């Protein structure tokens, strides 16, 4: 397993996860995560070279449904739950930072 997690990495991960952490929180998170990851090194003792990952515990395949339409949810009911709505649509602040 890699060396312990750095503060810089924690800050990067927080950005990836869209979690606004202040400096104190980043520090605390860094030490807590480092502690956990240190504990997780126990698996380094195992020889996993010939082991296949197990993603799904149940061996199902080909689960599908027919192409039959079901009535839509009621727009008003859904938008009533929305933090901000306008003209039948969900409204969000400017999408800056995704485009230069």
């Amino acid at each position: 397993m890699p060396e312990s997690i750095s503060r810089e990495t924690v800050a990067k991960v927080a950005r990836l996860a869209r979690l606004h952490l202040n400096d104190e929180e980043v520090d605390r998170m860094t030490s807590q995560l480092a502690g956990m990851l240190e504990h997780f090194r126990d698996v380094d003792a195992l020889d996993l070279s010939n082991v296949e990952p197990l993603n799904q515990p149940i061996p199902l395949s080909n689960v599908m449904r027919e192409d039959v339409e079901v009535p839509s949810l009621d727009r008003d009911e859904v938008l009533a739950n929305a933090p901000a709505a306008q003209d039948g649509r969900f409204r969000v602040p400017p999408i800056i930072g995704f485009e230069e």
Partner: protein
Amino acid sequence: MVELRTAVDVARAVASGELSAAAVVEENLAAIDAREGEVHAFNVVTAERARERAAQIDADIKAGRNVGRLAGVTVALKDNMCTRGVETTCSSRILAGWKPPYDGTVVRRLADAGAVMVGKTNLDEFAMGSSTENSAFGPTRNPLDTSRVPGGSSGGSAAAVAAGFATVSFGSDTGGSIRQPAALCGLVGVKPTYGMVSRQGLIAFGSSLDQIGPFTSTVADAALLMEVIAGHDPLDSTSLPQPAPELMSVLSHGVEGMRIGRITDMPEGSSPDVLERLDAAFEALRNAGATVVDVQMPSMSYGLTAYYLVAPAEASSNLARFDGVRYGLRVDAKDLNAMYGDTRAAGFGDEVKRRIMLGTYALSAGYYDAYYGKALKVRRLIADDFAKAYESCDVILTPTSPTVAFKFGDKTNNPLAMYLCDVFTIPTNLAGHAAMSVPFGTGEAGLPVGVQVLAPALGEAPMFRVAAELERAA
């Protein structure tokens, strides 16, 4: 001390007219009035709804109309199960006040069976925890000793049954979140085989690990509830194709000739009282005609690491949808990225943030193989261990929880100490198997001890047979 009615009794009595559904509801509401302030099992009590539903059931029975197998049985539902028009919050600020526009499949099946919902129960936020101390709305207290935790994450559901607030309740189990609170509150708690009960409408934490299951005061009640809620759901792609298993009919079969596995290399750290009860359980089953077989699970103790990488990884993805755009909390900001960051910072508690960070990291470029990828391989080893063990036994017995209910604040300073609560329950989720906790006497301070019966996938029948025997012997 409230005398707990069983679902089997209530259903029979209501169906025959001996007992009205309204009376059952009133009894529960009275218990809630008396102790909910202290216990805090619920996020919301749906008193009016319950009364209406009960009245309707009573009217239907009077008119000779068909009512379901659970008519009049009151249920409490963990607040991560979507209930149409009723707040479903996962005990998180980020979903405070959110009312789903739809019912989950299990919720619908219960309603169709005539069950009466009395409320939504408290949980560790987003089902992440083992004590219900991580709820954003305050902890739930163990009704048997209010200085102690009820367990988690389904602590509210366990407390609701233990305190007589509902006949039965439902929780979800990702790493032990039904079984451990059941053990700590002296109840029966079942985690079905993965895929046996639909996850549609269950707000996801660890998608390849989660299952909904019942909390009951008896094994028969659990069997009845499993027969109602289990079985294929076309709305859940991971739902097993089989219908619900027949379980009530096996309860009287006894354990003659069955082989009960004892894990000789079990992780250490259980308290002596718990270990004593486990020994007694093996003894009881021997006396009832079963054989105890030694098995090894060399990878079992690595389950914690595998789980605390796989579950947070899936959770980090499942919880990304809580972004303030379409529902739930939004913290306004000058631009979208700021809104995301501020909303999620304000909406999630510390444990949730920690797991999201851990999970995001475990999946991120350059770290996938070392963490998530590795964890999936450990998962395979554990499944292989189980497969080998089950060649020589039908079920396995372990403690459910290493200790009886602990005091508030005992483990909150050290996340790892809290994680260790699930050391016996986690492997089952990783393997996708079935397991249930059965109360088997008391331990320290007279608090209940739960014994865990583990079975291979689709092994609910042998599992319930053994559980029923333990219940008879307890």
